[in-house]
């Protein structure tokens, strides 16, 4: 299945979850938040949130800002 993670297309195995995507794109889970198709996925739900073909995933963390 194909999803878009932080604007980049990625191929993932069927049944991949939000937790799997987070592990792929960052080594730290602390200070990270995820939205799928614009909706916030709470951390406690990452492992159970299966992704579907075409999903838009945003994996976000702290950056410098005023």
């Amino acid at each position, binding site marked *: 299945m194909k999803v878009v993670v*932080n604007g980049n297309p990625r191929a993932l195995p069927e049944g991949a979850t939000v937790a799997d995507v987070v592990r792929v794109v960052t080594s730290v889970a602390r200070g990270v938040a995820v939205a799928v198709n614009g909706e916030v996925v709470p951390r406690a739900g990452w492992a159970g949130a299966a992704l579907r073909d075409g999903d838009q995933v945003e994996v976000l963390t702290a950056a410098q800002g005023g």
Partner: protein
Amino acid sequence: MLKIGGVELRSRLILGTGGASNLDILERAVKESGSELVTVSLRRVDAAATMNGGLLDMLDRCGVRVLPNTAGCYTAREAVKVAHLAREAFETPWVKLEVIGDERTLLPDGVELLRAAEELVADGFQVLPYTTDDPILARRLADAGCAGVMPAGSPIGSGLGVANPHHIQLIRQSVDLPVILDAGIGTASDAALAMELGCDAVMVASAITRAADPVSMAAAIRHAIEAGRLASRAGRIPRRFHALASTPDEGRPHL
């Protein structure tokens, strides 16, 4: 002591982390500033890693509280989403709410800001809105249940200081909440003036992070905020059109 959302802060300087050339200088500036509340933004992990991998760890070492912002949002809808994501990421209900109206001035869009503030207050956030220097909008934000208001002195990063001191004083009088002068500070005297006008705190990013020597500027602004606060409480003399001699005329020698 400054109290925001039930939390007491000894320092009246809120530091923004944007604009620092590297994390090491930023860490030294944070420590020198004495700030206990430091803003961060929320960005894609890949972009954040190239900018500042380890920012949160560094802020932990400094022992400061993180204040997430919604920088870059142009609509209430977007800002509310970012606030929710920030609450997930940083486990804090505090948010510096920014809803920008235009790219050139980066001034707030008051209509979208109020809408977002109302929604986030209802969702249980402690909302600190970056607002204009309009006293009426500040009051509307206070009525909406915000934890404080953050009026702009002048546009973000402009270094133009407090463009409308009278309005900042009016905001101070019109809301019974912490007033935090935000944006436009260029140097220490601007921060002192904001405090003399009655502000409870000053938020500074660029004036420190983009100074030639950010660590020294952090110290200068820390002292300026303390000086301005003292001066504000000490009660300045009224302005007069003509002179008022400070030396008595009585006993003047006739030569």
